[in-house]
């Protein structure tokens, strides 16, 4: 999907080569997906610090893209996606395991109060 963007945007501006503005986002090469929103959601809801790794990699995506390092930004994007997905699925896995454990232990406890 990212590969198609330069072609779609080609009619609107100059060809992507040779005009890399410093410290700005270039229109020729759109930044790769940085997974920032997803990693914030994982941090808040999946309750595991994997989201933090996602946020760190999102920072790498943005700063490398701003510096014109497109390959580095793509590598950071892949890493950010990896950590966010790990956090997401571990979170879901823990939740499902917890529910299964609960069902196995007996539904009788399900409606009982929590005595902590």
């Amino acid at each position, binding site marked *: 999907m990212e590969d198609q963007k330069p072609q779609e945007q080609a009619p609107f501006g100059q060809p992507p080569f040779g005009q890399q503005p410093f410290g700005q986002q270039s229109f020729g090469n759109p930044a790769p997906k940085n997974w*920032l*929103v997803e990693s914030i959601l994982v941090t808040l809801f999946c309750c*595991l610090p994997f989201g*933090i790794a996602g946020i760190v990699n999102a*920072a790498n995506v943005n700063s490398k893209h701003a510096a014109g390092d497109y390959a580095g930004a793509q590598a950071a994007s892949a890493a950010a996606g990896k950590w966010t997905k790990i956090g997401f699925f571990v979170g879901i896995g823990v939740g499902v395991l917890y*529910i299964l454990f609960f069902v196995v232990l007996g539904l009788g406890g399900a409606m009982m109060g*929590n005595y902590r």
Partner: protein
Amino acid sequence: MKLLYILGSIVLLSLVVIYYKFNPEVYNFFPECPFHKYLHLDCPGCGSQRAIHALLHLNVQKAMGYNLLLVLSLPLLAVQLFSKAYAYFTNQNTVLGFWYNPNTPKIIFVIVMLFWIARNLPYTPFSYLAA
């Protein structure tokens, strides 16, 4: 992709109903954070379930007591959701430039880490942040 959206909406809607009907503080079938269970420390996401329950009952103050970070991030996430929905329905490829600012993730990272440390300090002004 469309099927995924529909399935996601169904799951989300049923979660909303569950979190509206059952208070995670009272019923114990809600999953507990492994980080909190084994280390007895709060992570940045601890208190989210109770905060969502409070938010669904429109009790923002109580939700802030459970997880301040979650409540503070809601406006930001709402803007993102709106922008995504707008892009989807108008078939435009709009992306919020804000998320791609090099400073945004760094600031968010610092906020999350400070929140994580602060809510585990046992002293008075910080203990309000604990879940």
